[in-house]
C-alpha cells in the first residue's frame, strides 16, 4: 500500500497550455480604449431609454437592453464599491501581489468598472480613487496602471 501511494504521488505530469488570443473589442469598448490610450479620458455609454450610464461602455444598455450610441466622459475619480484582496501570484498578474481587485463606480456612471489597486488599507468600499495612467500606452485596459486614493 505504502509503495502504491508513493508511486501515485510521484506520477506527476507537467504540462503547459500556451494560449494566444485576439479579442475584438466591438465599437463601444474600442472607443473606450482608443480614447483612454490617446487622451487619458474615460468614456461611458448613455442609454437613450433609461438614461443609465455604463462604464465600461456597452453597445446595448445592460439594464434595459436598448441600443446605445451616445458616449459621454465619466470620471476620472470614482467610488470603490467592492474590494477583493489577491495574495497569490499568477502569470500576467496586473500588479505585484498582494494587490486589490476593485469594482469602481466612476463619477457620472451608474455601473462599475473592474480594475486593480495597490494593497493599501485605504482601498475599501466607499473610498474615492483616481486612475494612475500607464506612461506607455498599449490600447488595453492596462493603460490605467491602477487606481489610487484620490488624496495621494
Amino acid at each position: 500500500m505504502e509503495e502504491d501511494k508513493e508511486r501515485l504521488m510521484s506520477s506527476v505530469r507537467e504540462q503547459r497550455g500556451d494560449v494566444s488570443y485576439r479579442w475584438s473589442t466591438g465599437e463601444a469598448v474600442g472607443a473606450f480604449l482608443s480614447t483612454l490610450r490617446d487622451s487619458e479620458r474615460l468614456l461611458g455609454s448613455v442609454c437613450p431609454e433609461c438614461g443609465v450610464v455604463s462604464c465600461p461602455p456597452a453597445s446595448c444598455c445592460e439594464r434595459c437592453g436598448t441600443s446605445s450610441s451616445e458616449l459621454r466622459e465619466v470620471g476620472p475619480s470614482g467610488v470603490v464599491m467592492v474590494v477583493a484582496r489577491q495574495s497569490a501570484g499568477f502569470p500576467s498578474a496586473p500588479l505585484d501581489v498582494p494587490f486589490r481587485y476593485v469594482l469602481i463606480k466612476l463619477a457620472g456612471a451608474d455601473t462599475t468598472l473592474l480594475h486593480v489597486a495597490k494593497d493599501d488599507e485605504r482601498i475599501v468600499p466607499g473610498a474615492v480613487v483616481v486612475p494612475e495612467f500607464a506612461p506607455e500606452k498599449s490600447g488595453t485596459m492596462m493603460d490605467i496602471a491602477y487606481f489610487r486614493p484620490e488624496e495621494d
Partner: protein
Amino acid sequence: MALEVARPPGGSPVDEVRGHIDILFRHTLGPYYERFFREMANGKIMGIKCTGCGVVLIPPRPYCSFCYAPTGEWVELSDEGRIMTYTRVHMPFPGQPAEPPYTFAFIMLDGADVHFPHILGEVDPGEVAVGMRVKARWAEDRKGTLHDIEYFRPAT
C-alpha cells in the same frame, strides 16, 4: 450608427486586444492512468472491464461511461484494431501530437468497446479508410506516455 470618438490625428482606433495566457500545471495521474501509462511503457495497452454491462473501456477509469457501474478487471488489449473514423490535420495548433499534415484516427482496438485516439503513419492519406486494420508502431525508448506508440500503421 458609428460611435464618434475624439482622438489625435494619426492614431488608429483600437479594435482588438491581444492576449496571451501561459498556463503551467502539474497533475498526478491517479491510480487508473498511472497504471495505464506504466503498462504502456512496457509495451502493453490496458483496458478495464465494467462489472455491470461488461464493456471494456480504454483508457481505464473507475466507473463505466455507459452504465455507471464500477469497473473491475484490468484486461490487456491487442495493439491491433480497425479505424472507426479519421481526419487529416493540416492546421498547426499548440500541443498537437505531430507536425501537420498528419492523419488523426479513432481506432477500435481488438478486445475494446470504445475507440482509442491516435495518429496514423506509413500510409498514404488517400488509402486510409474506415474499417482498415492497423497496428501500433511502438517507440523504442518508452517513457509512459501516449507517444510510447509512435503511430498506427496498416496491419500486414
